[in-house]
């Protein structure tokens, strides 16, 4: 292999990394909004992503055969629809379970209830992934259309020896991911709802005294977080096959991105997810396939051990 071949591989991985990374970034935003507002580490986030994937898959399987829905854009529409659907799931789960160990109720519990929250979301994760096995089966499935197999060619460059192929489905997904992040960012910074969410995040007590219903804010934040990650899952579904256990590895990818960006920061989470995506794809050039995720876990450990406040977030006590 000569130098240009290496260059081509590198560019190819970089582009793939940026596209995948945008989707990771979107999922990270969902995770970080839950932490940012509620101070809850949600272990079930990977399972909500998985639910978003299966939402897209089943809707596609049921409706995709009708001519009206048959277009190439349909899977992407379904991915976006996974957002509101899982928002509802999140709101209901918060009402039934999460609410019992978070918010004001938690302040009386041991270590502010962190203990209980971590374990509760772990329980939800176990039920969802194993219940998923029952309802969805263990055979990997995917939502694909012709865009998944088509690519644009960039190049040839450098005297026709280097070309980069850009997968069309991934490109559309990445653009949608960025759009969702931008819209959500505007919602958080510009609207009244966003302001009350940020106020409840900053100081729940003061927010309560100012007449903000903090429990409701938490519920909405949990719904948003779950919904946004589900959109990420839906977009990812048109990329690679998946099965009900996929959540566990993605929860680490998400946390790697979120911690990299600084827990609680939306911009940081997106950039963190983007970085993780690039790292994962570029490392594939030199590392065997199985170690692609190991490198992410190792990076995650290095970041969390040596710079737990991340690179873009606000300062937070970590030790």
């Amino acid at each position, binding site marked *: 292999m000569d130098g240009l071949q290496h260059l081509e591989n590198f560019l190819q991985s970089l582009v793939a990394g940026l596209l995948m990374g945008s989707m990771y970034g979107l999922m990270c935003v969902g995770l970080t909004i839950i932490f940012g507002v509620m101070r809850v*580490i949600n*272990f079930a986030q990977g399972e909500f992503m998985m639910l978003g994937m299966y939402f897209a898959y089943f809707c596609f399987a049921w409706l995709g055969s009708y001519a009206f829905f048959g277009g190439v854009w349909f899977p992407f529409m379904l991915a976006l629809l996974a957002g509101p659907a899982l928002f509802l799931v999140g709101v209901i789960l918060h009402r039934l*379970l999460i609410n*019992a*160990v978070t918010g004001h109720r938690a302040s009386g*519990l*041991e*270590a502010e209830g*962190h*203990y*209980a929250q*971590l*374990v*509760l979301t*772990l*329980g*939800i*994760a*176990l*039920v*969802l*992934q*194993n*219940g*998923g*096995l*029952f309802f969805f089966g*263990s055979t990997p499935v995917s939502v694909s259309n012709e865009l998944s197999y088509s690519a644009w060619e960039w190049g040839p460059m450098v005297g026709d020896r280097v070309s980069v192929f850009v997968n069309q489905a991934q490109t559309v997904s990445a653009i949608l991911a960025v759009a969702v992040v931008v819209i959500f960012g505007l919602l958080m910074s510009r609207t009244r709802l966003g302001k009350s969410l940020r106020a409840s995040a900053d100081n729940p007590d003061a927010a309560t005294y100012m007449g903000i219903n903090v429990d409701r804010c938490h519920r909405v934040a949990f719904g948003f977080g779950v919904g946004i990650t589900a959109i990420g899952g839906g977009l990812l579904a048109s990329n690679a096959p998946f099965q*009900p256990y996929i959540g*566990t*590895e993605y929860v*680490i990818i998400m*946390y790697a991105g979120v*911690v990299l960006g600084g*827990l609680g920061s939306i911009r940081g989470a997106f950039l963190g997810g983007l970085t993780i995506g690039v790292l994962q794809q570029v490392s594939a050039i030199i590392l*065997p396939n*199985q*170690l692609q*995720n*190991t490198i992410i*876990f*190792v990076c*995650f*450990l290095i970041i*969390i*051990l040596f710079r*737990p406040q991340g690179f873009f977030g606000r300062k937070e006590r*970590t*030790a």
Partner: protein
Amino acid sequence: MNTAARKDLTQIGLFGLVYVVIALLISNSYYQLIMTIVPIWAVMGLSWNLLSGYSGLISFGHAAFFGLGAYLVALCLSVWNLSPWFTIVLATITGGISGLLVGLPTFRLRGHYFALAMLAYPLALLYIFEWLGYQEVALPMNREAPLAYMQFENPFFYVLIAVILLMLVMAITSMLSHSRFGLSLLAIKLDEDAAEAAGINTLYWKLVAIAVSGAIAGAAGGFYAVVLLIVTPLAVFGMLVSAQALIFAMFGGVGTLWGPVLGAFILVPLSEILYARYAADFPGIQGVIYGVAIIAVILFAPEGILWKLRSLRNPEQGRLLASFASVSSADSDEEILACRNGDSDPEIMAVANLSKAYGGLMAANDLSLSVKKGELLGIIGPNGAGKTTLFNLLNGFVKPDSGNVIFQGQSLLKKRPSKICAMGVARTFQVAKPFAHLSILDNVVLGAYVHSKNEDEARRYASAAIKLVGLLEKSAEPASNLTSFELRLMELARALASRPSLILVDEILAGLDSAAMANVLDVLRKVQVLGITIVIIEHSMQAMVQLVDRFIVLDHGALLAEGSPDEIVRDERVIEAYLGKKWLLDGK
């Protein structure tokens, strides 16, 4: 060994005996397998409990130790033909060492961050073992010498080994939890800063905990490989392994001896039997059961079944976590707390050019001062003058930007708070930091450990300190039942029990009524009589003028004035910066 530990051992012995008798009556090999697996998971629950249940640092990564143990035994047997009798011991050691290796960097983190970091270790190992090509390692049968390779025809012997392992681990847990280890970890769980300030080297105890915990998990993993005869990365490093360890402990009762055992004995058979019956239609049923179990526990009995039962039986006891019989003896002599001021140097502590900035704010600005042996030094100054920061600098919570602190000839720079406490500098806090779910005696015993060789000695010093502050008749009550006045006396006792030469007392009088204030002043005078030097931060000038020998006035992190009470109340600069003109008119 104390009586509580002896009682535990008897119960463990009886339990093991009953288990073995039941196992002898059973001949169905499937039930025998379940009876082998249940103790293994109980051991995993105990392993998790030893670290996370006692210290409150949640581990989601115990599969790392379990998996390493399992692979070590499997690979040693299949590659080098080494007997599990030997390699399980090796797995135990490996588990302990990997515990240390994981703990050293990871204990930099607390709370959420610790839990997240722990999650990554087993998952990283999972992919590494897949990459190494160990997707499935089978343990070969050895027909010539089955016994030497832990291969029995009669499955009863596996049950026997499993239950012996469980009894051993229970005995270790019982012994540790009734020793300094258990109480120190509980203190870390309840308030890590207070524990460190009370002279408990929190890093040391956490490392001990994770090493022992890792060793136990390694042994469990090693034996699990022998029983199941096949090892795959997902089965030993997977998320479910860590989750099970946590779930059994939380379900049965966090931080108890029998909780993890109870959890495993209920949940493992339940899930195994349901799995055997419904696996064909519902392959994930085990995970669903564990998930539902843990959700139910969190919602209805957040600390586990045993704690729930205990609180139902005895609701007024509160949540007393103490592992000790909490009776202190009235006959301990306060004199044993007397300070042994060895050398003749009249200066006990010298602070030289100490500076600490928070952004643009100078909390300590080139501060130099000296504390004389045996004196009662008052530190006053307006809010934000840097008084509490000075204490945090002196006891090691905050590292100075520059300058030095010399205490009895030794520098305190770069020392852990627990080390500084061991050198003889104790402190109390502006906002009291009790170990809320421990009795007063246990709170104070924790402070006494730093200079006590054994339990008896610690309890003697603790009793003397409790007597000195006048809380003797309340010493068995949980600290959470105390009034704020009593809490401060208890903190003072905790500080005294470490037999300090110098005590830093932070606003002990704030918000007290005059009777309580007089009481505290009396106690402080008694402390001074013992030869212990006191540095006290306070706002109430009336009380301070009666009490102290000398004042130091701080303003904006710098020394404004120092001198006798008479000099200070007349000092122009002090009146302007702190006391106000009104003081002159009212006071004199």
